[in-house]
């Protein structure tokens, strides 16, 4: 009962904040609301017995990635007119996008209610996970069953770091040549 109440409160906060992300005029307000969305999603992960995912959701998403977003918003320092050009180049784009979004919600809702999800049950019930420890289990799996994707992820992050530096530093290098 308490669990259902917590789910309803957190999910309504999540949905309201997600709507605010889309409909706020100022990008910095959108970023703040997105942080709140991610924090309330972390609470939902804890309800689903995924404590490690909840922790890295707060640290990586709400911490690192959103700080990056806010840095960029402040770095660009957009003027009032730049924040949202209100002219609609495409006629009816907003209204038709909202109608399509509502259709998408109804479709996903119908599919997830009507479908009977069945699959091969794994070996990790919440009881056995709490016996081993959620983080220990993820660590063990990362270095045994998923060691190849783990290494690929490190190469991907390395490539992303180099890409970000090359893209963002372009102008400074040109200035040095001149």
């Amino acid at each position: 009962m308490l669990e259902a109440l917590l789910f309803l409160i957190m999910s309504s906060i999540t949905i309201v904040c997600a709507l605010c992300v889309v409909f706020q005029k100022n990008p910095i307000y959108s970023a703040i609301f997105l942080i709140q969305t991610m924090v309330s999603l972390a609470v939902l992960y804890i309800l689903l017995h995924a404590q490690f995912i909840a922790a890295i959701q707060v640290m990586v998403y709400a911490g690192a990635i959103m700080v990056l977003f806010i840095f960029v918003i402040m770095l660009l320092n957009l003027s009032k007119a730049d924040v949202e050009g209100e002219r609609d180049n495409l006629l009816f784009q907003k209204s038709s996008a909202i109608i399509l979004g509502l259709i998408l919600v109804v479709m996903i809702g119908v599919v997830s209610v009507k479908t009977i999800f069945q699959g091969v049950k794994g070996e990790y019930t919440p009881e056995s996970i709490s016996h081993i420890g959620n983080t220990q289990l993820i660590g063990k799996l990362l270095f045994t069953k998923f060691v190849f994707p783990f290494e690929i992820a490190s190469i991907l992050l390395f490539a992303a770091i180099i890409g970000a530096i090359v893209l963002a530093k372009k102008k400074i290098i040109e200035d040095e040549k001149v």
Partner: protein
Amino acid sequence: MIPLTWYLILSGILFSIGAVGVLIRRNAIVIFMCIELMLNSVNLAFVTFSRQLDSMDGQIFVFFIMTVAAAEAAVGLAIIIAVYRNKATVNVDDINLMKW
């Protein structure tokens, strides 16, 4: 125990909000934030199925999705900064060099 269908419906609602945001907003940074919102909703569905099937694979996948999202955010924001240097705007309607 909450029915897991509720989580899936919440995930679907968040995904649709993100998709609508990508379609109606003009600011490239806000479009980027909506993409993050969609990634988050997919993460929620992954964790839900991981809980339902008593398997850890879903949570490991969420871990990798977060890695990819971090890489994507770094590169995407660098691209936005590079575009802003050249065109002095982040409005996606004004960035139409490749438009045929």
